[in-house]
């Protein structure tokens, strides 16, 4: 029993959960509307976009890489889909979703090849593709919004599941949250039960040994970037299903929020460590912080400052922690 308790207090997840609870209580005291099912569904729906991308970022971080191009990938996919739907209003939702995911996967494949075949450090490769793709998309769209999606598409985004009474209304779980949950389950299955998933942890832990025991490091690395790109594509669909139009500018810079979610959830930017459960907590934490800042009326510029500080602090704490652990002295049993 004591051991279970020790493990619990040691695990990162518990401390994240504790922070979420404390924050939720504080915000509820200031604004009682915060702790309602309908508000929870609302904030999770709007954050599902970042959540899905964070679940794609997770394997990349675990493998010891980083993907800065998710912002450009989601923009690219959104624009491609917008143009496609404008041209083919008679298409259907399955085609639309698949199209986005394929475009995202291709963008990820490019990153993967740059990293594995040309040995470009991930941070440089993905920053490069981000800049190029973003500029190309903005050039192509002139930065103009795309709207006029077909009705069948828009109404798909309003689907809700179940009926829960909350604050005088009856609300259901939005389809966007279902997307998030399905992606979470898929990512968990991949990481835990496939050899590819274990390879991701192995590569992030020790590349040399991973090669020695026979993991195909290039394949693993390529896979994580493709996966991240694919989920950025799915996030593009999710986004349009919420805002119903496409603004090519909204997502520039969002890669940092995405990385922050994964790191808040316990993934390490130095590789080898991270869980889906933790990332979910990271999503909730991020959603609570953002919503809390709004509810306690922090101006939107200061919100950015606060988010920036949170990102910096979480990432540096992670790096410093890992260092300290490495430098820890051996313990000697001193005779008393």
């Amino acid at each position: 029993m004591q051991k279970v308790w020790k493990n619990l207090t040691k695990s990162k997840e518990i401390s994240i959960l504790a922070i979420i609870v404390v924050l939720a209580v504080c915000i509820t005291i200031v604004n009682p509307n915060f702790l309602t099912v309908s508000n929870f569904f609302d904030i999770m729906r709007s954050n599902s976009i970042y959540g899905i991308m964070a679940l794609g970022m997770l394997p990349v971080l675990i493998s010891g890489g980083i993907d800065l191009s998710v912002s450009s990938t989601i923009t690219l996919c959104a624009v491609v889909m917008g143009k496609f739907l404008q041209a083919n209003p008679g298409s259907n939702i399955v085609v639309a979703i698949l199209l986005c995911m394929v475009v995202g996967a291709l963008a990820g494949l490019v990153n993967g090849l740059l990293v594995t075949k040309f040995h470009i450090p991930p941070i440089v490769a993905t920053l490069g593709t981000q800049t190029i793709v973003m500029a190309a998309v903005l050039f192509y769209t002139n930065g103009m919004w795309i709207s006029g999606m077909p009705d069948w598409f828009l109404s798909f985004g309003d689907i809700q599941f179940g009926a829960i009474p909350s604050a005088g209304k009856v609300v259901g779980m939005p389809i966007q949250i279902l997307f998030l949950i399905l992606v979470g389950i898929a990512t968990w299955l991949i990481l835990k039960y496939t050899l590819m998933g274990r390879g991701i942890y192995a590569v992030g832990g020790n590349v040399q040994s991973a090669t020695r025991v026979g993991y195909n490091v290039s394949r693993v690395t390529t896979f994580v970037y493709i996966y991240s790109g694919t989920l950025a594509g799915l996030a593009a669909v999710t986004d349009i299903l919420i805002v119903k139009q496409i603004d090519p500018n909204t997502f520039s810079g969002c890669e940092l929020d995405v990385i922050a979610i994964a790191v808040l959830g316990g993934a390490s930017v130095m590789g080898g460590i991270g869980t889906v459960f933790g990332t979910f907590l990271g999503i909730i934490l991020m959603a609570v912080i953002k919503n809390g800042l709004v509810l306690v009326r922090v101006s939107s510029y200061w919100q950015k400052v606060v988010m920036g500080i949170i990102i910096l602090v979480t990432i540096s704490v992670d790096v410093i922690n890992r260092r300290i652990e490495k430098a820890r002295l051996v313990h000697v049993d001193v005779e008393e």
Partner: protein
Amino acid sequence: MDRVFLEISNVSKTFPGVKALDNVRFDIRPGEVHALVGENGAGKSTLIKILSGVQPPDEGAKILIEGKETQFAHPIDAIKKGISVIYQDFALFTNLTVAENIGINETIEQKKKVVSWRAIQKKAKDALDFLNVQIDPNAIVENLSVAKQQMVAIASAVAQDAKMIIMDEPTSALSRGEVERLYEIIDLLKEKNMAIMFVSHKMDELFRVSDRFTVFRDGQYVGTTDADKITEEELIAMMVGRKIEVKRYANLEEKGEVVLRVENLSKKGNFKDISFELHAGEVVGFTGLVGAGRSEVAQAIFGISPADSGVVRVGDEEVHIANPAQALEKGIAYIPESRQTQGLVLPKTIADNITLPLLRTFANKLGIINREKQMSAVDEWIKMLDVRPNDPTMLAMQLSGGNQQKVVLAKWISTKARILIVDEPTNGVDIGAKDEIHKILRQLAKDGTAVMVISSELPEILSVSDRIVVMRRGRITAQMDNDAVTQEAIMQKALV
């Protein structure tokens, strides 16, 4: 018993400018411990890399496994043929569980897409049971002691149905008790008909575990003999090509005044009530088992992790050293024990590494470095420590393990500190160079430096020290002059 598992001949390996192996041969039988011995740079690690498929040999090499000619294109090929290596860093996934480290290989080998955790757990448990070691399969490897990590690495080899296990200097990071445990495991593996190739520089250990020796010198095959048909002296002569006698240097010099005085130094969980003095011109050997707290005392004095209480005086002045920079300022230098991580810039040349701490002394007023002066100093150190190859432009990462250690030593000794603390200075260093290093430490003492040597090797302590301090479980249990002291007397103080 005469069946041969592995037989190699005509094996050469050429690096640009260096012939690391020149036409060597080697063979090993099931159930035998065959030690590969030789000086630093003799080519032992290179042969291991070839046998494990990490590096290909030159054209013309002949490798027979159970009579069949073979080639390794990839480390996996070697593992499939039954050859596993316990690397010095164990090559484990420290972020994953013990079970996964041991059991996942089968899944990889069978190219399964889906992982069965039940099968992995079982595989791990079987391997740990086979070795008769108690380690929690669900523990994260990072949290295990070095000795346990090594056991996990061995279990992982067992789980891969290894028929031959290669161990490259496996005891260099273990305490004495852990070494005994490793010997037991080796005996057990032998009993189960495993072939074990063993590399070490420690004579007592070589004679304890080996059935046969094969000697390499400068990349060449010298000979193979049965362990019970050769004496220690003869083996050393084979290795170095000349006779080396172990000298005792005690009390040759006049002691100077006290330069370091430590009183009641304590640190919770590390050491307690440590008091001793260092005189200018003497070498004091700190011995005891690994984990007795010797390195921790040194690191406290040097400011890496300061003590909780107690007084340190340098000369007459009481000092409170909070970090290594302050220690260096007070004239204290500390050479840590692990050569790979602390002290070498691997992608830099030997010359750069040696002169890193004293580049300023080669610079003129404008800060421009006098290359000539730098190079001649470097040459001197290379010669003095017998670094091989003696080419100052060689990168540190291209050196053999023992030669890297010599470069680290040169780097810090050349700073000319008043008080020099060296931690396991000859770990992984061959017998000839060991004596060179001892001579240098003595020379430093003669020039007035106070030298503190931490070593678990008793012959080394007896050879180099004027005075011996024994520690056990965080406390000093004895301080004695090194005149009529015997190994047994020291061991007694270190153990009970």
